[in-house]
């Protein structure tokens, strides 16, 4: 099992929980998250956390690294496929488009990018800040295959992952709703980067359990 390159920076908690569940490190270590001297920093470090293959933090770094990994796979004639998860807001960073050009030019069919298209960034909606649409056409213009799906539909995601690839890199635009299922969080920009209180966690868990 190779964890994907995660360029999304604010998903460290979900990544650590997943890695612990798979067995990369003891689940008890999760309790140290963000505490003094914990290996589990707010942004993951590959030296400190088993299973983390690349560091994440500054935006627009994941795709170039994933392109390098795909180039390496090509050079080594490996069957390994590289997956990279990007936030949609971070596509405003120019480094992604440098890398998109490289991947398209080199026809890196062993590379799949998943864009978490929740349309929110820290300060406002993406389309009100510096619009990304039409995102699929942008990637096609850069030499990629692009498709859109419901990012909450796991079977649709599985189909997309297992579908035969063409001769180009693949961009999966996963349309999602941030905070889906929690009435007071759903699609609200302030929850892009906010820590819920104990009461809010309880309320959210109750709504999700319904």
């Amino acid at each position, binding site marked *: 099992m190779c964890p994907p390159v995660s360029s999304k920076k604010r998903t460290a908690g979900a990544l650590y929980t997943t890695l612990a569940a798979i067995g990369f490190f003891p689940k008890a270590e999760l309790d140290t998250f963000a505490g003094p001297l914990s290996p589990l920093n707010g942004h993951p*470090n*590959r*030296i400190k956390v088993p299973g983390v*293959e*690349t*560091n994440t*933090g*500054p935006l*627009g*770094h994941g*795709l*170039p*690294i*994933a*392109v*390098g*990994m*795909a*180039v*390496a*796979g090509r*050079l*080594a004639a490996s069957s390994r496929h590289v997956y990279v998860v990007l936030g949609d807001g971070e596509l405003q960073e*120019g*480094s992604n488009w*440098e*890398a998109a*050009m*490289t991947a398209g*030019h080199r026809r890196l069919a062993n590379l799949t990018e998943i864009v978490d298209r929740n349309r929110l960034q820290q300060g406002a909606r993406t389309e009100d800040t510096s619009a990304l649409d039409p995102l699929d056409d942008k990637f096609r213009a850069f030499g990629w295959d692009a498709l859109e799906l419901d990012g909450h539909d796991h079977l649709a995601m599985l189909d997309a992952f297992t579908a035969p690839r063409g001769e180009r890199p693949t961009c999966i635009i996963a349309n999602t709703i941030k905070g889906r299922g929690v009435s007071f969080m759903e699609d609200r920009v302030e929850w892009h980067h906010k820590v819920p209180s104990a009461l809010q966690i309880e309320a959210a868990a109750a709504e999700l359990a319904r």
Partner: protein
Amino acid sequence: MSAPAQEIFDCRVAFADELITLAREDERIVAVCNDSVGSSNLVDFAKEFPDRLINVGIAEQDMVGVAAGLALSGYVPFVCAAAPFLTGRALEQIKADVAYSQSPVVLCGMSPGMAYGELGPTHHSIEDLSWLRAIAGLGIVVPADPNETRSAVRWAAAAGTPVFLRVSRFKVPPVTGDTAFTFGAATTLHDGSDVTVVATGTMVSRALQAAEQAAEQGVSLRVLNMSTIAPLDEETIRTAMRETRAIVTAEEATTTGGLGAAVASLVVTSHQPVPMRMLGIDREFAPTGSTAFLLEHFGLTAADIRAAAVELAHV
């Protein structure tokens, strides 16, 4: 009677030659560049290893990220690009994807300092040593001549840690004989007892000339080739502080954070500091002129080094 002119060399030639030799021995060696095949002297590498030259186009952030991805997949990437654009444009990638990640990437800053002369400050790379020395976990290597360039390239390929290698285009005479490069160790190229000159890169041959000139004035200079800027060879500097009375540093870079600042930090925090002079460029953009002219303009000739050292010898 004037001395016969010394033969001088562009270190990029030795760099490319050694890289090709290494690539023949080790298929993990790849070159990553930003349309800089010609300026990095990679034409022959490209001919022999077309698949192992990854030219991403004019895209420095992508270039360093791609190199990190290759390194994390088991390759040994040599990123070859003009130093100002490699270090300035991809600084965050160097910090996060290479140094903080401890990805074994060799970042080769070609044509550094004021090698691009008349092309002006946009193309000069005098800030690189200051920028990069502030980054943890990144080795900084500045070879003084072709022999040391070759040796440093060979070392870097096997180092397994992030390295910045500053490869001179401005031609220099051979000064290191066949001495092998040792990471983190200065070499004494000329022993002396009055003042120590700590020089790096293009300044080393000038420091040696300064030592000859100073001897004629009865002042004995010790010349250290500080080819590793980070980590600094502190022991050799401490010995120089004990055995000579003053220190002069010389670098084709800003004095804000490179060699001079590194040595000065050590000197002023020691129990018995010695007088110091730092030769380099002090937060100033260069006027128009050739590299040789600019080195003279900024007081980086052998005569300038000699003058600074002789002055300190008499303090």
